[in-house]
């Protein structure tokens, strides 16, 4: 049997190690294991690397403990805004999306752009409309927002409000 392998990374909103509780760390470890397993099973059965990376990233997007899909950070206006990309090393085909909302799995939308459009990169409303046209699963705003992300966003906004205003 030929070599096969998968590597994943799972960023979360918390970047200060001292703020990472043991419970949160355990949940993140579990999420990493689930994602790894999702991708590895595909490779183990002889599936493609492309399917494996999509499955692994979907798993992380569906897990609120990671900063992608459900559990995403919030922008200045307190909105979820997601980006994703996928690339096939065999053909150099690629697909990417940015500033999408409502799409449950942006990585699958990126793959859809790669496989079902003439383009490489679609942004914003165009990407959302493309997702609707191709029947991707959509979710309401509250699905993506977590208490943790909202709390960290509030801290940032409150900190900014403390800064002296230097303009009218």
């Amino acid at each position, binding site marked *: 049997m030929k070599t096969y392998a998968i590597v994943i990374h799972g960023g979360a909103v918390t970047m200060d190690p001292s703020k990472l509780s043991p419970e949160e760390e355990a949940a993140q470890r579990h999420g990493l294991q689930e994602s790894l397993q999702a*991708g590895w099973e595909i490779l183990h059965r002889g599936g493609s690397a492309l399917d494996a990376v999509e499955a692994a990233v979907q798993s992380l997007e569906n897990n609120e403990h990671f900063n992608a899909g459900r559990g995403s950070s919030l922008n200045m206006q307190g909105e979820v*805004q997601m980006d994703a990309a996928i690339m096939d090393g065999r053909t150099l085909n690629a697909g990417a999306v940015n500033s999408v909302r409502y799409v449950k799995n942006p990585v699958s939308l990126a793959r859809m752009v790669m496989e079902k459009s003439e383009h490489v990169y679609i942004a914003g409303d165009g990407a959302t409309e493309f997702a609707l046209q191709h029947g991707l699963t959509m979710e309401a705003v509250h699905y993506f927002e977590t208490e943790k992300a909202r709390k960290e966003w509030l801290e940032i906004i409150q900190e900014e409000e403390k800064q002296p205003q230097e303009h009218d």
Partner: protein
Amino acid sequence: TVGAVALDQEGNLAVATSTGGIEGQQKGRVGDSPVLGGGTYAANEACAVSCTGDGEVILRGALAHEVYALVKYKGLTASEACREALHLRAEDLKGDKGFIAIDKDGNVAVESNTNIMRCAYRIGDEQPFVAVWR
């Protein structure tokens, strides 16, 4: 930001990266993750790479493509290439950078200077490795 790179039994490489951006970011801001060559790149003859960290720094360094180029043209392993890319023009490209990569020979790499790097990998039938590095 989350991401995955893989090598399948046919010898094909692939990468996917997805992100919810950074907390309180400017509306419409694009980080490295969806930019091909910036935070995401794969080519069978060399490697697949996914990045995390300060998106603007990774974009300016085209760091995913840098790792690819180091593997392809300098003959480095994935791990060596990620280490070299991590220190590329360190004065001009200051910031958090994290890489996962896999080369065409199945060598895996995880390199980072971030506060926390959550990662995992599994090679063939070997036991899975899962870590939250500080």
